[in-house]
């Protein structure tokens, strides 16, 4: 019998709709896999066994009486624990929300439920999505399925590792500066950050509101497109949500073809600072695309070099305000100091005990950057840089239909390697941040291995042109899989410690 966990979501959906496989079987197979490997990976903070099986049984029942079902009905999914879910805990990877249950569902979760996709559980992340390694989770790090001594990227390391370790065919992530794409790159999976406003943020716990975006985490480009179509589209609960229809994304992935596609290589996102193996895989990918008929040109985005600096002003500024609500008054952790404490002391003690160091670091940075007398120099200047980055994109997209770069400058580093060096950690997102700053969509697809570890290739498209990502991404995926003789993840080693 086929190992159901090895199927792509599209393949599994096919087997479910043709009733070769029941949703109960599909969900149970993934729950078994989680039970087997997650003690080593730690991708899940909560496993939603009962509800997932209940939804699966409903799907099987409805399908047996011939009801029309969503194509992905019964295909299980994992949800990053930054996205609120009724009936399950939501922690944001923080002690300050330990034990908290949301009384409402995020819009994307409601859409999963409407499609009858069983939710397997909630995945680990850097606390409040602040980090690039998932080491900043208050609930322990997640490990990279390719090498358990290495990080799975972050902040969405849990979702990427769950998909890479075949614990789930699909997962949701959130991407503020690369938290979907960089974990995708270092785990050999696919990650998409949609156009800002393309997917509702309602129910995604905010880090930086003007940068955050929910997106798919999958093993294939087509799967990402299918999931994107489920979660995308206008939501009246999110004022920044676009009114555009979500578009024919799966169709774009199925009709992948780069013939005549103008692909712009971003001069500033390669070379120095990029690991040799990463650069080599990137160059090979360009060669393949060229051979397939793409028109590969070089474009320059001179202001991208300021993106990281500006990001580390805007993101913490917004975060400092977004995280003010965690004060022990209405929900979550409350720490009451001895004596007859004032409300200020309760709030202070709660936040001191509930937040980890990286969160505190960013709150302090952001509070400072917004302070009277510093606002213009910091937040104001950073917003100007944002405009310049937008202009760089505008200019580049007159020369190219999509842009391309390595997703991350290095492959997965070792646990603890950069924990004491925040700046080195921040540099991981140098290639992913510009897309968030400009609101444009991006995808990371597996680009091969360097020293046995996955490398990611990133495509970027103009805002609202997410379909181009699926077209280009699926084309590159097909070209590379031809050279590998199958999916990259087929080359992943067995997870150590698992029989």
């Amino acid at each position, binding site marked *: 019998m086929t190992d159901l966990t090895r199927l792509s979501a599209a393949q599994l959906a096919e087997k479910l709709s043709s009733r070769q496989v029941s949703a109960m079987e599909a969900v149970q197979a993934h729950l078994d896999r989680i039970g087997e490997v997650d003690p080593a990976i730690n991708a899940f903070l909560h496993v939603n066994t009962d509800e997932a099986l209940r939804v699966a049984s409903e799907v099987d029942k409805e399908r047996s009486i011939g009801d029309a079902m969503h194509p992905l009905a019964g295909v299980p999914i994992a949800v990053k624990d930054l996205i*609120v879910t009724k009936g399950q805990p939501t922690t944001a990877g923080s002690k300050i929300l330990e034990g908290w249950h*949301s009384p409402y569902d995020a819009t994307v979760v409601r859409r999963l439920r409407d499609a009858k996709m069983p939710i397997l559980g909630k995945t680990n992340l850097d606390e409040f999505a602040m980090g690039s390694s998932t080491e900043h989770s208050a609930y322990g790090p997640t490990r990279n399925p390719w090498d358990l001594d290495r990080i799975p990227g972050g902040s969405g390391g849990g979702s990427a590792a769950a998909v890479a370790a075949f614990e789930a065919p699909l997962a949701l992530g959130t991407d503020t500066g690369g938290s979907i794409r960089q974990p995708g790159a270092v785990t050999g999976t696919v990650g998409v950050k949609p156009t800002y406003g393309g997917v509702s943020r309602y129910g995604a716990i905010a880090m930086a509101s003007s940068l955050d975006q929910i997106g798919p985490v999958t093993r294939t480009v087509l799967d990402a497109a299918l999931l994107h179509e489920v979660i995308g589209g206008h939501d009246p609960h999110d004022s920044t949500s676009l009114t555009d229809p979500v578009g024919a994304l799966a169709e774009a992935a199925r009709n992948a073809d780069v013939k005549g596609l103008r692909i712009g290589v971003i001069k500033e996102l390669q070379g120095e600072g990029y690991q040799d193996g990463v650069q080599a895989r990137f160059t090979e990918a360009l060669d393949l695309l060229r051979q397939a008929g793409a028109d590969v040109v070089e474009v320059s985005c001179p202001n991208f070099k300021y993106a990281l600096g500006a990001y580390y002003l805007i993101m913490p500024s917004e975060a400092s305000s977004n995280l*003010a609500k965690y004060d022990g008054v209405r929900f979550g952790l409350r720490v009451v100091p001895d004596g007859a404490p004032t409300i200020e002391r309760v709030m202070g003690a709660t936040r001191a005990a509930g937040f980890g160091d990286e969160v505190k670091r960013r709150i302090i940075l952001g509070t400072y950057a917004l302070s009277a007398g510093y606002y213009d120099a910091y937040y104001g200047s950073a917003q100007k840089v944002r405009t310049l980055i937008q202009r760089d994109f505008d200019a580049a997209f007159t020369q190219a239909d999509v842009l391309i770069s390595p997703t991350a400058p290095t492959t997965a580093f070792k646990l603890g390697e950069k924990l004491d060096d925040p700046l080195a950690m921040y540099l991981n997102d140098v290639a992913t941040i510009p897309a968030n700053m400009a609101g444009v969509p991006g995808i990371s697809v597996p680009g091969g291995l360097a020293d046995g570890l996955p490398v990611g290739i990133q495509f970027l498209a103009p805002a609202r042109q997410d379909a181009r990502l699926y077209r280009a991404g699926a084309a590159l995926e097909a070209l590379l899989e031809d050279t590998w003789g199958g999916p990259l993840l087929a080359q992943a080693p067995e997870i150590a410690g698992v029989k």
Partner: protein
Amino acid sequence: MSTATAEILSFDEAMEKFDPVLGFEVHVELNTRTKMFSSAPNAFGDTPNTNVTPVDLGLPGVLPVINRVAVESSIKIGLALGCKIAEKCHFARKNYFYPDTPKNFQTSQYDEPIAYDGSIDIELADGTVFTIEIERAHMEEDAGKLTHMGGATGRIQGAEFSLVDYNRAGVPLVEIVTKPIVGVGARAPELAKAYVAAIREIVKNLGVSDAKMERGNVRCDANVSLKPKGQEKFGTRTETKNVNSLRAVEHAVRYEIQRHAAVLDAGGTITQETRHWHEDTRSTTAGRPKSDADDYRYFPEPDLVPVVTDDAWIEKLRSELPEPPAARRKRLQADWGYSDAEFRDVVNAGVMDAIEETIAAGVKPATARKWWMGEISRRAKIADVEPAELGVTPALIVELQGLIDAGKINDKLSREVLDGVLAGEGTPTEVVSQRGLEVVSDDGALLEAIDGALAAQPDVAEKIRGGKLQAVGAIVGGVMKATRGQADAGRVRQLILERLGVEG
């Protein structure tokens, strides 16, 4: 705690030495069906923490959505205050930690108010008009309500714990901010009261707020500073909060002027701070020190898109505006031909609307005023209710007055008819017939009574014949007595004179 109550200078002395500068921030709670940024009901007096959604509690993951009706109400307020309306404006976050603020920031407008640069004419009781410049009117959300338990004062100091009700959190507010008001002198307290009354009247007239000060629908923060006579530079100001009645506004401004004057006169300096108004002692105490350096770390609210207005929308709203209260008063007074004193009495008695309706129902202006300022006001006073609450309808007045004009009843009888109508005995006509109140209009019956009265008082009859017409009253009185008041006194007088052959 506040320092010992400062001496206050007499108001007259304060005015001899100093010029007051005023400024007002009036918060108007809008009466939209739902809150500023959520679908929770905007309602007063419900069980605590029931009118809340995850958005109002600031739960993780929530996002605000702007209430379009609240924006329209805000634009209407701006237009009514003669303001310009911004083509595009943002909300901002005002960051501060306080438990009545669920997100620990207030979503408010900061550097881009929806309305700005307006003015409003305020007419004082003696007809003097002051123009007050409006700096801005901006949209924001209200905070929740804290109740401090276990202390003696109900204040946070000394309380054992505090309860918070988020029903009010997120209720739409418009904050109307004046420019500094100078040159008002001793009329400052009176102007303060009149200004807040005018704002309350405008928002009520627009229908955008319930405008009940006792419920906090209209709340005033009064800024006061003094400068020595002749000095240009403004003095240090205080902001008195919690001034929640028109009378309190007047008293608080007066008190702060006197307090500032005492401090300055003694060579002291005023601390820039908020002050709390206490209705019981009619005085203020020091609140939180406030300085221009208060750092709220404002930045544009990234969860909301800008509010964009266009001419068509604004003009549509402008066309829906009711006539401004001041203009309406001017028009009505002219239409009705009342003197200034008569009209002011009508306004103060709160019967202007009733008179307007009564006139529209077909009664002459002077007659309408006679009813509302006379009999109806008298009854209202006795019952201790507003005249409009007595249940007297314009149609009733039309019918009563019609009966009087037709000579069926007289003024005196009309009161008795009104008694019957208000007692539920039926329409005026029905009451007249049921109680047998119709005046005696049969001349034969009247002449019989007149002859009786003349015979009873032959000396008076003689005086009348001799030309002393004022003596007729005694005979009329006798006739009225004989007919139990059910005679038309005018007709009786006429018949008496005819009977005696005297020219009237």
